[in-house]
């Protein structure tokens, strides 16, 4: 397969169309495995130095959602940079399509974090560095979406929002540093320091399965959104007319 060919919207449109059901199915299966494992194969209580009861199961969605939110912002900024450097239309559309899904996962990370915080810390919102970082990431997503929708001219909207995404990406390490280390001389204010090696396998497997499920879901959702964006923007071209005429009949 010639991958460069896929850079043209005309070739990518049907390609994405074929992939959506596959990713959708993969997402469903993986999420179900994660759910099933997490609820029926893990113990009800978490012992150790930090004993937790059933509510710890929230991490099976919280952690994957938080991971996805950060990963998708990277994807968003990467496509923005590619678009600005190589001036490829599809990259901008890709970035635009990623943003809402990323924002949803960020919101979910915040929501599930709050619900975990209440039984765990006794409050829905604590200025925990990781939750605060998610909150700021959420603002960055909202900024991208707001700027893009405030500009009528598509090209300016694409490029301006892309630049904002890159500026955001450059600032993210600094923002996270300032949140994690409000005192520059010591940075250990995390509520719970987690060491990936110490996580029990029965917890890690559902968490990873759920993450992969969310990842596949993101592919499906982003491709679906991308197809609509492509069609709207390319409506004048011959291939798009054919597609529209064809799909309108079915």
């Amino acid at each position, binding site marked *: 397969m010639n991958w460069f060919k896929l850079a043209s919207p005309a070739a990518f449109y049907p390609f994405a169309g074929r992939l959506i059901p596959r990713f959708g199915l993969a997402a469903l299966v993986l999420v179900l495995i994660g759910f099933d494992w997490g609820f029926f194969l893990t113990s009800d209580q978490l012992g150790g130095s930090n004993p937790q009861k059933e509510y710890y199961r929230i991490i099976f969605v919280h952690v994957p959602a938080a991971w996805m939110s950060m990963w998708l912002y990277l994807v968003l900024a990467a496509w923005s940079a590619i678009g600005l450097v190589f001036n490829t239309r599809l990259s901008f559309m890709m970035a635009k399509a990623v943003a809402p899904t990323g924002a949803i996962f960020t919101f979910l990370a915040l929501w599930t974090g709050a619900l975990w915080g209440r039984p765990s810390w006794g409050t829905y919102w604590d200025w925990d560095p990781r939750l605060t970082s998610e909150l700021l990431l959420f603002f960055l997503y909202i900024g991208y979406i707001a700027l893009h929708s405030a500009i*009528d*001219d*598509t090209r300016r909207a694409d490029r301006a929002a892309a630049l904002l995404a890159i500026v955001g990406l450059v600032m993210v390490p600094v923002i996270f540093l300032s949140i994690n280390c409000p005192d520059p001389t010591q940075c250990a204010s995390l509520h719970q320091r987690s060491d990936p090696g110490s996580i029990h396998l029965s917890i890690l497997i559902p968490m990873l399965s759920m993450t992969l499920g969310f990842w596949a879901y993101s592919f499906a959702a982003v491709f679906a959104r991308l197809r609509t964006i492509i069609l709207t923007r390319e*409506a*004048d071209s011959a291939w798009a007319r054919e597609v529209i005429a064809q799909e309108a009949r079915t």
Partner: protein
Amino acid sequence: MLDVTDLACRRGERDLFSGLGFQLPARTLLHVRGRNGSGKTSLLRVLCGLLRPDAGSIRWRGENIRELAEDYHRDLLYFGHLNGLKADLTGLENLRIASTLDQAPVDEDAIIEALARIGLEGFEDLPTRMLSQGQKKRVALARLILSKAPLWILDEPFTALDVDAVEFLQQLISAQVADGGSVVLTTHQEVPLTRGAIQRLTLGETVDDLDAATPAAH
């Protein structure tokens, strides 16, 4: 000197022009015509490098203007719909700043003389917001007198000018062409030249217009 090939420009959902190509040698004036909305201003902004074309290339003395960037802008004088004057500054200050930024600073006497030539003697120390529309335009046009740029791109320079000023501007343009420069301009006015060539470019109407009768190209 200016070499345009296969230029295309879209604004929003609409194709303004495509496959546009021409060469503009020295000692030439390019007169761009077309109806309202036919893309005249967009074309001029593309030629300035303010607007990125959707296809095609523009070369200045053989090099792409994207790569020349600032070097191209040094050779260029653009006169847009807006006068580009700060209303709170005097004509003198406006022109002094403009010439400093163009890296061709001129002394105060030259500016005062330029303003006098364009008929604004005694107005040089007034904030431009106190001037009339036509006078503001004259202050802005005084940049043409001070400019040494070989390429002028002028968007509707004749509007809001009275008969004397129009005639003076025509002389300026024809002097620029005679001195070996090039001028691109949009106007409904004819510009008589003493020396040099005139090219005409008509941007066609979109065929969606019901009464579109003009042929697409001349």
